[in-house]
């Protein structure tokens, strides 16, 4: 009965919709006045443009929310599950508090330092306190969305990047040291690197007049290489956790990490597909590449682990997926699905070897493998972007006449691989030097590590006065 009624309603709606345009078409042309038609066309064009803008804006706001979800709860759960239970809250807090800290920095000057016109290395101060960042789009970056949407979308990247580093110094850093470190790191490492790659006139910007056009669709160098390499520097400078590697320090809940990794995977669609900055077919292409890269890497890591260890672990599968997402990030908007599978598979195996073989060979305590996954995966992905980027997917490189030219090595443009290497090298140098200076400053002022007693007690109690699990209450 209900079904019949709803069918009737549907039919009625269809008839109305179909008859409406016919009705409209009959009246006005007879009048035939030129200016009237002109005005109607202008109105129509305005409406089409408004609709396009509304569509793009809706997509970009959702993407901004998705990228925030990667930090909290995504990364907070992923990292929180990997530490011992006495450090779960402190580890989650390190991600969570950055959602607040970086937002304030971004509002005051961060956005300006990255996206206002400046020199090749750092942006200007014209957007200080978000002055002039409003509803009008900035066509150099994204011509169909309010600049304020672009600003808040980019903010979410500035939040997750330092949060990734926290995996390297987990379970042993003072909370106030971590806060000071992150404020300085955002200014000294993130803002210049993001300006160089994405800002107007930045040294590495591929589409806005960079001297060394480097392809970085969604932040392989800006986000993952800088954070991953800084993570390695932190791990080396702070030293190992007490007992590492002799005493067992197993994850207290791989369950939390699985949930976190799945949220990261979903959020990454906002990160990569959103980097198209519009809801068009390029976003679809990046979405597909992102998903395929993650899938292939989960299989690559699992296969490598199964082969060398006899078992495919759950932690391995989710770590592989994250490694694949990292590696596909710079390439997402430049490669097709098959290239994405290849990039993912390579990243899964390489990152597996990084966190198992390389880490144990050198003995550094990159506690949650921020370097092994983000530093290594990000560098690898950036270089592979130069190999697999295809003009057919995204004709970003143009010659003097404005005609599209070959993009990656597969197109017959080997020079791009070189450019990618230069971009990666600059990110490494900036991350190493910047992080070392910041660590020295923080070490001299507030001190980096908690006392041995506090480390044994756990950071939840010693830094925050709480416990994650009061199960007997």
């Amino acid at each position: 009965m209900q079904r019949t009624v709803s069918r009737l309603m549907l039919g009625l709606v269809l008839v109305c919709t179909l008859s409406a345009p016919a009705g409209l078409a009959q009246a006005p042309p007879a009048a035939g006045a030129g200016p009237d038609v002109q005005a109607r066309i202008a109105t129509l064009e305005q409406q089409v443009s408004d609709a396009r803008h509304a569509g793009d804006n809706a997509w970009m706001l959702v993407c901004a929310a998705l990228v925030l979800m990667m930090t909290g709860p995504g990364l907070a759960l992923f990292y929180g599950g990997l530490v011992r239970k006495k450090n779960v809250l402190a580890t989650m807090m390190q991600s969570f508090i950055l959602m607040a800290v970086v937002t304030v920095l971004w509002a005051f000057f961060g956005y300006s330092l990255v996206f206002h016109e400046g020199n090749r290395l750092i942006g200007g101060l014209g957007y200080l306190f978000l002055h002039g960042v409003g509803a009008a789009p900035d066509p150099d970056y994204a011509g169909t969305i309010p600049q304020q949407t672009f600003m808040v979308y980019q903010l979410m990247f500035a939040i997750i990047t330092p949060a990734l580093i926290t995996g390297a110094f987990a379970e042993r850093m003072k909370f106030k040291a971590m806060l000071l470190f992150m404020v300085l790191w955002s200014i000294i490492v993130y803002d210049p690197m993001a300006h160089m790659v994405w800002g107007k006139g930045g040294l590495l910007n591929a589409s806005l007049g960079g001297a060394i056009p480097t392809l970085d669709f969604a932040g392989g160098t800006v986000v993952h290489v800088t954070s991953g390499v800084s993570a390695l520097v932190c791990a080396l400078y702070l030293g190992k956790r007490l007992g590492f590697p002799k005493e067992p320090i197993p994850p207290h809940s791989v369950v939390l990490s699985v949930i976190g990794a799945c949220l990261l995977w979903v959020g990454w669609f906002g990160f990569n597909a959103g980097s198209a900055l519009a809801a068009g077919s390029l976003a679809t292409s990046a979405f597909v590449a992102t998903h395929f890269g993650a899938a292939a890497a989960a299989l690559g890591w699992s296969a490598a682990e199964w082969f060398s260890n006899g078992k495919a672990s759950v932690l391995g599968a989710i770590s592989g997926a994250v490694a694949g997402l990292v590696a596909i990030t710079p390439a997402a908007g430049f490669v097709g699905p098959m290239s994405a599978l290849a990039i993912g598979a390579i990243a899964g195996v390489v990152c597996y070897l990084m966190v198992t073989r390389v880490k144990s060979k050198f003995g550094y305590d990159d506690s949650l493998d921020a370097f092994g996954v983000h530093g290594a995966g990000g560098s690898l992905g950036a270089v592979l972007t130069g190999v697999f980027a295809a003009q057919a997917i995204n004709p970003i490189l143009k010659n003097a006449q404005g005609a599209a030219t070959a993009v990656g090595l597969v197109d017959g443009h080997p020079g791009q691989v070189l450019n990618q290497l230069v971009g990666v090298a600059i990110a490494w140098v900036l991350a190493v030097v910047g992080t070392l200076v910041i660590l020295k400053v923080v070490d001299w002022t507030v001190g980096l590590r908690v006392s041995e007693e506090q480390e044994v007690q756990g950071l939840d109690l010693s830094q925050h006065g709480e416990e994650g699990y009061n199960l007997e209450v």
Partner: protein
Amino acid sequence: MKKIEAIVQPSRFDAVKSALQEVGVEGMTVSEVRGHGRQKGHTEVYRGSEYTVDLLPKIKVEMVVPDARATSAVQAILRAAKTGKIGDGKIFVTTVDEAIRIRNEDRGETAL
């Protein structure tokens, strides 16, 4: 009076409990414990770091029974807990000097 202390596989605990009830053992104290005898533990690998877990979860069942019932209780535990594999656990039997019910200060076997 005898005290019987049995350390059994967690998976066999329900069977042990019903077997004891069948032979008339009315009270018991149960705890979740960890330990190992000859059974080796297992290894866990997290991102290439290998950990040996040698303390394995077991269930410890304790009860005090009249002398006359000790043998049948031990037999019941053996029947229910034995899988024939390493790690099945142990039973210890000791003599108990005194038992006192706190509520009414009954003493000896009447207190059980």
